[in-house]
């Protein structure tokens, strides 16, 4: 990969790191998710910046061009992140269902208790 290409990818990586830090700062991104993205970006910058490492990775994944190896790595990362986020959404959805059910059950229980208390307070004629 040319020096120009390495610099371009490094700059893009650094900009994205800055963006993620800002999203965390403005409370638009949860630190737990930010850490995953930051690790991925730092990993990408390290692989791109050290030519020997990039060639090693290219060789390992069986690609001919380093750019192809990077694309494959990016694809694997994005796929993994999608599964991770699907999992997180499922967990949140299950928690939401549980909370809604608990709220409804508690509300009904309170209504029934109030009704019982009222009927006990009523004088027997």
């Amino acid at each position, binding site marked *: 990969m040319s020096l120009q290409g390495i610099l371009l990818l490094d700059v893009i990586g650094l900009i994205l790191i800055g963006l993620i830090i800002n999203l965390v700062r403005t409370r638009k991104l949860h630190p737990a998710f930010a850490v995953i993205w930051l690790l991925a970006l730092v990993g990408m910058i390290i692989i791109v910046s050290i030519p020997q490492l990039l060639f090693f990775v290219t060789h390992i994944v069986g690609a001919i061009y380093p750019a192809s190896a990077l694309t494959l790595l990016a694809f694997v990362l994005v796929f993994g992140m999608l599964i991770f986020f699907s999992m997180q959404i499922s967990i949140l959805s299950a928690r939401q269902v549980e909370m809604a059910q608990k709220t409804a059950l508690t509300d*009904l229980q309170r209504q029934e208790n109030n009704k019982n208390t009222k009927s006990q307070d009523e004088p027997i004629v």
Partner: protein
Amino acid sequence: MHPRVLIVIPAYNEENSIAAVIEGLRQAAPAYDRLVINDGAKDGTGKILSQMGEKQLLLPCNLGYGHALQTGLKYGLQHGYDIIVSFDADGQHRPEDVIMIVTALLENDVDVVIGSRYYRGEFYDSPLDRRVGQILFSKLTRLLIGQRIYDTTSGFKALRAAACEVIVSGIFMDFHTESLVRLSMAGFKIKEQLITVNERRHGRSMHSFVSIFTYPLQTLLLTVVAMVDALLNRRKP
């Protein structure tokens, strides 16, 4: 001693049918308690129930049929009911069949009775896609648990509390094939009872065009999960 029976009726936008369903149940099964699960209905369902003085459990948002039913089962278990009957709010089920289905549960000494539209090849005119799915899942249950269940998607069921506990604690979608497989593999006995189903006059089916494709796949996946769960639990000492 008579068992305590609770009829759970999940309802979402059923303002056209809910009053008749409740009135029918009041007349046909006055000894049984009822609980309508108002699944975040946006129409007048809740208002009608309030006017009728009917007990309703109001979910803060629409959770879908399966989770609405699950909430009713949780309520039934919390309040010590012996038998819980699930009953649709769209007017398709006949209230007079409730007694029959509970009697079938008690007399046959089983844990689950399914009010079946297709029992032993009985004809019920349903859309082709649903009929095909029904046949496939019916054959799948025979393959997996050795018992053919003709109507796996029936919303009219009677269950003993012990059976409710098993399915409430598991992954819950709609209480269809996946739950039946889970129950059967846990040793619960299931029986089908032929019922007559009225044609749906009001409201819409909960199945959309997309769900025609996704629903069977989800059910299949959950059935596999139920089987794996059962096998893993069986291995535990």
